[in-house]
């Protein structure tokens, strides 16, 4: 049962990700990307990581993509005004993302054993267990991520206020 669900979700996520890259209209791309996020959230639920699934939806679909859509609407791009990119950009993009794909495949090639080990702790994705792990075993990376976010916030305020007196 969950195998068929996994296959359906995987198919949907790959298909919508491709449609996101291939569609000409940027607003369509954003909507396809949101569909991809939902399919990935479904995979998290299958892995019993409900907290991660809902946070994925809240953060990516609920906040980041709203901002993407917001900017696209403010710019109001359409076929007439959209800047036409030259073929050199397409080649550059293909090479860059192709090398990223190579790195990902190389990194994940030997990881099948690790996945089998994680599967033993089936309830690690529930919020109580996740919180405990974050504040005990991984507390240093967690706090460093917090500092990173603070730095990003300060940077965003600085960029927003160009005429700020330092």
């Amino acid at each position: 049962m969950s195998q068929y669900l996994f296959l359906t979700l995987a198919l949907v996520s790959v298909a919508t990700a491709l449609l996101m890259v291939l569609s000409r209209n940027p607003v369509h791309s954003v909507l396809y990307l949101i569909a991809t996020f939902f399919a990935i959230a479904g995979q998290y639920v299958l892995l019993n990581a409900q907290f991660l699934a809902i946070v994925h939806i809240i953060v990516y679909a609920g906040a980041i993509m709203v901002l993407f859509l917001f900017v696209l609407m403010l710019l109001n791009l359409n076929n007439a005004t959209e800047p036409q990119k030259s073929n050199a950009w397409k080649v550059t993009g293909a090479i860059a993302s192709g090398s990223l794909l190579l790195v990902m495949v190389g990194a994940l090639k030997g990881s099948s054993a690790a996945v089998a080990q994680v599967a033993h702790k089936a309830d690690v994705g529930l919020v109580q267990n996740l919180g405990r792990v974050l504040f005990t075993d991984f507390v240093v990376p967690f706090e460093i991520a917090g500092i990173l976010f603070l730095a990003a916030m300060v940077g965003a305020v600085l960029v927003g206020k160009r005429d700020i007196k330092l």
Partner: protein
Amino acid sequence: MSALLLFISAVIIEKTALVLVMFLITLGIAAYSTYGERKVAAFLQDRLGPDRAGPWGILQPLADGAKMFTKEDFIPKDSNKWLFILGPGAFIFVALMTSAVIPWGTYFTGFGLNVDLQVADVNIGILYVMGFVSLGVYGIMIGGWASNNKYSLFGAIRASSQMISYELAMGLSIISVILITGTLSLRGIADGQAGTWLGFIPQWNVFLQPLGFIIFFVCALAETNRAPFDLPECETELVGGYHTEYSAMKLGSFLFAEYINMFISSAVISTVYFGGYNFPGIDPSWLWGLMGPVVIFAKTFFFIFVFMWIRWTLPRFRYDQLMHLGWKSLIPLSILNMLLTGAGILCLG
């Protein structure tokens, strides 16, 4: 094996029945909220309100529905056709999804069944609500953008910036409640409010979190685009706001979803801050369990009335005032509330 199959099919039938009942109740309440709104408005403005269709006008929602369905369904020529259709559909879909995690009562036992009066008790219930609230903006944004009309676009942009701003304060005020109850499940939050202090004060979160409740309530008004925060459909500036180009049942879906959102927000407020299905003197037996839905619906209807009362009492904010209130008042206040709650828990145990 067959026993397992029987159990699974019984669960599926039970949940399907619950979903159907909730769906019909939600639609019924949303339909009669439109009637209630017009009656409340009439009362506050010293008028009679709708009184032609049926006795006291109680068939008015049916008449409105028939009108919406039979009007010409017009799609502007230069609009993005599929997204124009997707907008109201997405909006009403998201509005209907949220009620899945709200507990409407403890349980019902009878006829050899033991039914939980809740569609899904997920252990992250309150985050599920927040997630779907944050998705609510897509219907408005897509519909407003696809209309290819600058008033609609302005309405959509206002709606999205307003919802992003008020979600933050809403989430921060929820964190204080989670700190007190120690669970993200809405059933857990409701169960934590059973019982009384000193024998007569109900143990509702609103008495522990008065500031949090006020922040949450203001944010709920803003998230549902209700007055005084109804800038996205501000008639005096934007014709009709994001639904300027919509007609017939597509317009109906937008308006209807707003009433569904109001019902769900009221139910969430009742569950999180006002004890949900609990009331003083409740006894966890099945007979009192049947009283649970009556209690939570009474609380919900009260908050729907408060939403309407506010709409017909307060004038609309200016847009910069709305942003100022969200970012410079509510977010700092909710962070302060969170710190106070944390300090209180640390000191009092």
